């Protein structure tokens, strides 16, 4: 019997998919959960956010002053995009792709603007996922 919190959690989760924040990779991660590893997805997401903070910061620093090393920027973004992809962060990944296109075009303004978008999506997703995981955890306490 589903309780209110479980319903809310399911709703949050559905919204995340419907609004394109996450993709099928997230489901693949969910399928790896079991009774012995019930919080695997949350663990991976937490790892993503702790691990990528440094990379985000480094990209930010690299964008501050010229001369701009587009190869290095592209490499850093490639790494970040890979991890985003591994957790199913669809919107974040899309911003990453755009950033890389601007790197290829050596368009620093494009890079800077798109990077704001990367950070925005990154932070928005974090907030939404935290809310979802919290609700799901609270909902499970009543089962």
């Amino acid at each position, binding site marked *: 019997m589903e309780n209110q919190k*479980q319903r809310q959690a*399911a709703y949050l989760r559905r919204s995340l*998919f*419907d609004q394109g924040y996450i*993709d099928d990779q997230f489901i693949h991660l969910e399928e790896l959960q*079991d009774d012995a590893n019930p919080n695997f997805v949350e663990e991976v997401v937490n790892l993503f956010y702790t691990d990528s903070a440094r990379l985000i910061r480094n990209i930010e620093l690299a964008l501050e002053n010229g001369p701009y090393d587009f190869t290095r920027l592209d490499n850093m973004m490639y790494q970040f995009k*890979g*991890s985003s992809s591994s957790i199913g962060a669809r919107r974040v990944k899309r911003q990453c792709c755009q950033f890389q296109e601007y790197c290829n075009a050596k368009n620093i303004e494009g890079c800077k603007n798109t990077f704001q978008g990367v950070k925005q999506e990154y932070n928005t997703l974090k907030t939404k996922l935290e809310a979802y995981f919290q609700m*799901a955890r609270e909902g499970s306490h009543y089962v």
Partner: protein
Amino acid sequence: MEKMANELHVLAVDDSHVDRKVIERLLKISSCKVTAVESGRRALQYLGLDGEKTSVGIDGLKVNLILTDYSMPGMTGYELLKKIKESSALSKIPVVIMSSEKILPRIDRCLEEGAEEFLLKPVKLSDVKRLRDFILRGEGDNEETEKKIKEGSSRKRKFHEDSSTQSMPSSLVTGHDIQSKPESSAASVSQQPLPKQPKIG
């Protein structure tokens, strides 16, 4: 070969902490023992190949498969592959390359250097299970595999676009081009039940 029946020991190499965590889980679910390292250099150290004196030898756990990311700082997966295939002690260990980029010349180069397969990231459970089954089946087929490598001619790309051929393991093209991903997939997943949560109390 000394291994538990049906249990492979896989050495996973990836500089991404997130990816290591995921691949480790995929392998454990597939009943494989896993050793995950963060670089080609660490992999070679583990395999006893780095040329430096290590106080600890290989921990006695024989490696049945090496699963490595392609793009890594320092030593790429390709360079690691080469070193392994150049070593008489280790060349028989199958090596599989993973990459988030589907670059055909890169794939060809890896296969020609002796990689068993090339997997597109994010790697899925079905990829790992298929790989495991292939390696388990092939464990008795070393002679045939060696012959193929010696023939030297460019190996047929086992990377197929469709899933219709099942005779050789093939990595499926996953929806990496997110622009082409149909929006309806979001609608279909809304029917999914909430994933398993722990029952407390």
